[in-house]
């Protein structure tokens, strides 16, 4: 019989090894899955995980997909470390895109270098404002931030629809529910001409480095770790839970809003009802796959970006169902969480499982 034995200390090597194990297991499960539905499994895996890396187009698209994932996930990881569960990044992303996009449309006829920075500020503020609602309700009434932030996501989607059907609709757009295309000075500069790789990629990198520094050196990094691991110890140390809840939600909201604005201004160039495509939810997987560490999140964001691009490739090349992307993302999270048990437990072959469990329980 297999049994689990608690480790005296969390295993550091397992902490870093389990994400890779999860990726390998996801691939293995994918192979079984494809074989069962009668598709060539090795070809499918190769199209999803390797093909996109062989062209400039594939790589730049990968970066474009990974940018919002990394930006959002870095922000979420701060709260997740502290046990503050912002599940509504998707809504904050939408509201950031809407706020920043509205600024772009408001100054449509006044192009200038100041416009983009103003849009970024508006985008971050929009996301932060949307995250402020769960922060206020949690600190004031102890309302569960998971439910509040999640439900606000759907409200945000509806607000976006109302706006692009109404006030922000393109006056010359034949009643299509879309805004007009942003003016050139409201578009994010492109890094490599001929691709969609925009400067948002660099901003995401800066966010990663900045967060890594804060976590390693700044008091705030310690505060969120302590609050997440032992709330009573945080009170003992004099760390304010209220301030931490506000900071984590506002920072992750602002980064999500910024990611939304980059998507509107950099990738799409207009506001459309279909702007929220689930980056805010996928970023949760990215955050955990990256072990809530900025550098890990960078790698995980690229991997999840790959499943988007590769999934599309597999749909086209092998006529696989479009659900293949979500299935892979779901399996990744599933295997990662399952593997996590190895960080705190080791597997033993035991002859008396009942006795061991009783001993653990005492």
């Amino acid at each position, binding site marked *: 019989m297999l049994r689990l*034995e608690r480790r*005296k*200390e*969390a295993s550091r090597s397992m902490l870093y090894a389990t994400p890779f194990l999860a990726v390998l297991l996801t691939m293995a499960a994918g192979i079984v899955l494809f074989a069962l539905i009668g598709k060539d499994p090795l070809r499918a895996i190769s199209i999803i995980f390797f093909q996109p890396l062989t062209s400039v187009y594939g790589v730049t698209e990968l970066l474009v997909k990974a940018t919002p994932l990394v930006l959002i996930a870095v922000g979420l990881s701060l709260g997740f470390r502290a046990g503050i569960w912002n599940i509504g990044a998707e809504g904050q992303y939408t509201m950031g895109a809407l706020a920043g996009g509205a600024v772009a449309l408001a100054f449509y006829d006044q192009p200038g270098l100041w416009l983009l920075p103003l849009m970024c500020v508006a985008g971050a503020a929009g996301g932060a404002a949307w995250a402020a609602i769960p922060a206020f309700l949690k600190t004031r009434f102890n309302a569960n931030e998971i439910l509040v932030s999640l439900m606000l996501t759907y409200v945000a989607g509806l607000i976006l629809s109302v706006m692009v059907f109404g006030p922000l609709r393109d006056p010359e757009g034949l009643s299509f529910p879309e805004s007009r295309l942003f003016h050139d000075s409201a578009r994010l500069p492109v890094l490599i001409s001929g691709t969609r790789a925009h400067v948002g990629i660099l901003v995401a990198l800066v966010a990663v480095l900045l967060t890594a520094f804060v976590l390693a*050196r*700044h*008091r*705030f*990094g*310690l505060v969120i*770790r*302590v609050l997440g*691991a*032992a709330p*009573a*110890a945080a*009170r*003992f*140390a*004099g760390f*304010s839970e209220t301030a931490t809840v506000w900071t984590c939600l506002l920072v992750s909201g602002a980064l999500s809003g910024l990611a939304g604005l980059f998507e509107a201004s950099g990738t799409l160039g207009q506001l459309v009802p279909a702007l929220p495509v689930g980056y805010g939810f996928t970023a949760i997987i990215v955050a955990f796959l990256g072990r809530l560490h900025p550098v890990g999140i960078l790698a995980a964001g690229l991997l999840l970006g790959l499943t988007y691009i590769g999934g599309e490739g597999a749909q086209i090349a092998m006529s696989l169902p479009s659900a293949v992307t979500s299935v892979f993302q779901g399996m990744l999270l599933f295997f990662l969480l399952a593997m996590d048990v190895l960080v705190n437990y080791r597997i033993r072959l035991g002859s*008396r499982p009942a*006795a061991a469990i*009783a*001993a653990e329980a*005492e």
Partner: protein
Amino acid sequence: MAGQPILEIDSISKAFPGVLANDRVSFSVGAGEIHALLGENGAGKSTLVKIIYGVNHADSGSMRFLGRPYRPERPSEARSTGVGMVFQHFSLFDALTVAENVALGLEDGQPGTGLDQRIVEVARSYGLPLDPSRRIGTLSVGERQRVEIVRCLLQRPRLIIMDEPTSVLTPQEAGMLFATLRRIREEGCSILYISHKLEEIRALCERATVLRGGRVVASTDPRKETAKSLAEMMIGSALKAPARHETLTGASRLELNGLTLPSSHPFGVDLADISLEVRAGEIVGLAGVAGNGQDELMEALIGERRVAVPRAIVVDGVPIGHQGPSARRARGMAFVPEERLGHAAVPDMALTDNTILSAAERMRLIRGGLIDRTAAARFAGEIVSAFGVKTAGIEHQARSLSGGNLQKFVVGREVLQDPGVLIAAQPTWGVDAGAAAAIHQSLIDLAAKGAAILVISQDLDELMTICDRIAVIAGGRVSPARPTAKVSVEEIGLAMGGQSGAGVASGAGHA
């Protein structure tokens, strides 16, 4: 009194990863005998008892119960054979009545009129007054223990195992328990009694088996030993009692002035008009049974909950009731909370990072918002060497340390900050005698340097050993502190039971 052995243990061994918990342990418990099982934390007492009660299983060796081979697979098998156990932590449901709780614990139990009658009979015959229809939530700790004992007795056991039964009782309640235990013995039932309170073992038990490092190191008649000689058998070396310095009390450093604070929890205790003063160079003890407001008082003293009236807590003449923990530490306060894992220290963080929790201000481990890890590591190293903390290194997680070593680390972290006012709750709880002596000595030395120290503890022996004055907390109220030399354990015990003030005066007569 001891006749044919009830339980014979022959060469029992049990290993856990990295530690041999029981190493060829042999002894026997006679019929109608109260047999003490003595040993420090980690000596292997709990493991051995769990093997007898069927929770753990021995790797080798054998047991005989009433002459027959005995190897219980699970506790229910032990119970049906005639072995009962009263645990240190009760397993009772607050919202259910006494009878319902007892019924839940019985193998064949159905609540009903018959059971109520049996409970009353058993309770009365052993001198344990108990009303079967009362809800557990309304009972005192001592009464809850009676429920556990009655539940155990209803199974008509031949051997009862009791794990530290007096640790939650006042001295008077403990006296009542002893009378009950003697009556149980007269009925022919044997008792295996685990405790590290040596005086009570000398008063109650006729044989003692001493464990150290998993082995039986002595078997003796405790009535013929002294507490000191028993302690030395347990630790295996001569016991060094903490050396007191001449107490020179100076200016008042900590004052509580009518501290009143309603509890934040539904089942908590409200602090009512607490006044207390601790002067420089003085150690004041606050005795009390757990759950009488100690946790709430600690919260208010640390500043985890702030007090609306700043003057309620005054440190060195400055009102600080409204301030948070960091501001109080900057004023020279330091705190040792009762719960070391999860409150005083973060289990999953390295010792280095754990120093920052409480030493950031006074040791300047955070400057300009940035953590100085070099300084933190230096301070952690200092604590480890000054307090003899056994650890593989300061980069290891707090949870990898044994309870006693982590406690030394936590106390060391606070004492080495050289605070002006130190407040310590249960500073030696679950710590072996050697470590406890070292912790006591460090508190005494700190006081000698002019600090004011308040020790909140349920361990009366501890308070009597190190404190200059002792006050009692009961029901959220604190009695006036009195010089240790002028109070008796009986008086304190009565006050702990809630008879403060008037009770102290007539205490000697009652005891």
